[in-house]
């Protein structure tokens, strides 16, 4: 059984004064997400990521298509007890304190009074808000709001967590905190489906990613495979400017940062380059194969509208 199964979701909006024009929000989307997987939904702004999440959450209705979450119809209200959702740039009832907010969401999720009493303090501790359990949310920073947002999404211990741009607009510390939280959810074996346009976060967290652009799925790939593809080139770092000219002569692209020189060159020229470094008494620091990055994959998918089989 797949955690998420999207079968041909489509969304078309009618726009204009007489609603005669059609605007495509999402073209026929088919997607499978495995249980326990951390799945990144990548795309530039306006690609259709939030539309997909809103469709899955039942906030908007599809023009065509259907979906299953944990094997049940996505509209089934019972299934919503087993999912958690953090919207993009969430705004919560700012007159409430974290404790009151979590109590409210706990009640909506069907948690008993006893369960809420046990879980809320633990959740506040888990997201690092122990100093502010009784401070109204209007006094919270963006990072703190994001953390309380994650807390409300996981309070009822859902099996699948949907996060819409969870790191968007956060400073580096805030991003790290949220990343750590997502990693801890991953360790607990939860299925995490998160949309982002920050590729480094996706690379660090995801098992698989899908790229969406202009409402169309452009590709799905396994992150470890995508980033381990060797490009047939190597990167050498060394200290000692005397070897620079000779290595450049091999066709290497060189750059200097202080005393350290970096060269990227063809794998076939590696042995010759190492000899040059040794013979010129320069100090070799490292030799590494140049790997494809998620960014390379992302950019290639945006450029080539090819739907990839999953």
């Amino acid at each position: 059984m797949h955690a998420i199964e999207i079968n041909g979701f489509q969304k078309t909006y009618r726009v204009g004064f007489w609603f005669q024009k059609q605007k495509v929000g999402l073209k026929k989307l088919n997607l499978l997400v495995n249980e326990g997987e951390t799945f990144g939904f990548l795309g530039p702004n306006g690609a259709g990521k939030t539309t997909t999440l809103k469709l899955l959450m039942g906030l908007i209705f599809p023009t065509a298509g259907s979906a299953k979450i944990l094997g049940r119809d996505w509209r089934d209200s019972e299934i919503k007890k087993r999912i958690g959702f953090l919207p993009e740039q969430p705004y919560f009832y700012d007159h409430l304190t974290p404790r009151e907010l979590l109590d409210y969401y706990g009640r909506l999720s069907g948690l008993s009074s006893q369960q809420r009493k046990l879980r809320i303090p633990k959740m506040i501790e888990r997201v690092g808000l122990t100093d502010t359990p009784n401070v109204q949310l209007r006094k919270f920073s963006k990072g703190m709001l994001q953390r309380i947002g994650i807390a409300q999404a996981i309070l009822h211990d859902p099996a699948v967590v949907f996060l819409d741009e969870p790191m968007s607009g956060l400073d580096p510390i805030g991003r790290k905190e949220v990343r750590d939280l997502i990693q801890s959810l991953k360790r607990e074996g939860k299925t995490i489906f998160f949309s982002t346009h920050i590729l480094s976060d996706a690379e660090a967290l995801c098992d698989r990613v899908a790229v969406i652009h202009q409402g169309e799925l452009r590709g799905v790939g396994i992150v470890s495979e995508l980033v381990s593809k060797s490009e047939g080139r190597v990167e050498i770092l060394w200290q000692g400017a005397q070897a620079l000219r000779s290595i450049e002569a091999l066709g290497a692209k060189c750059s200097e940062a202080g005393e350290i020189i970096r060269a990227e060159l063809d794998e076939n020229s590696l042995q010759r380059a190492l000899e040059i470094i040794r013979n010129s008494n320069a100090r070799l620091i490292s030799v590494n194969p140049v790997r494809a990055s998620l960014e390379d994959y992302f950019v290639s998918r945006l450029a080539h509208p090819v739907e990839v089989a999953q």
Partner: protein
Amino acid sequence: MSGRIPAIAFSTFREAVRDRVLYNLIFFVLLLVASAPIFGQISVGVERIFLVNLGLTAMSIFGIVIAIFIGIGLVSKEIDKKTLYTVLSRPVRRWEFITGKYLGLAGTLVVNTFLMTLGFYAALLFLTRQLGRADANILVAVYFIILQFFIITGITLLFSSFSTPIESAIYALAMFIVGSFAEDLRGFAAMAHGPQAWLARIASYIVPNLSMLNVITRVSHDQIIPASLIGLNTIYAFFYVTIVVSGAVIIFEFRNLK
């Protein structure tokens, strides 16, 4: 359903109570009621009539203002601020959300009216030095005012389920004003001929008959309100609220949230 509707209702109530505008309105009404005895001194011999009319009318107007201005934001604010997203991604059905929101605001208005009524009776006691059986009759007028609030809250919720807050406020206010003259509208329909009569008759049935719920003048003159009117008005308000809130639910069920 279980505890979800009460949870939403309580949250709505709590938000309204923590809203400073609400406190200002209550304060203003209480101030008005408290100053009534001073005005009463100007109108010698009719102090009590003056106080009952002024106090209950103020209570009604400010309650309607609260119902409309909080009511227009009940749904739209939740959509604009995306708080609704986290609510509806839980096992909460849309009709439960609308019902909870309605009950929350209705409850807020009941509590406010209760507090205003206490203030009003304090002012009455200060003016007349004693409270008699006739003064209990005023509670019927207060009850009808509460029924008016229930109706206007439902109407505001209905409009806010498909239009902008400003539009909702205008429509709801218009309904309140026209509804306050519903009996006149029916009188006009009876006198008119042709299409005008039909239009007036249809309009008189669509708008809430708030004039039937206004017995302020009668209680100020110690007229006893018959139990049949209390019963009929209660049934009327119940059905009117059920229809408008159901309308809001139906519209909201099919609405795409931006």
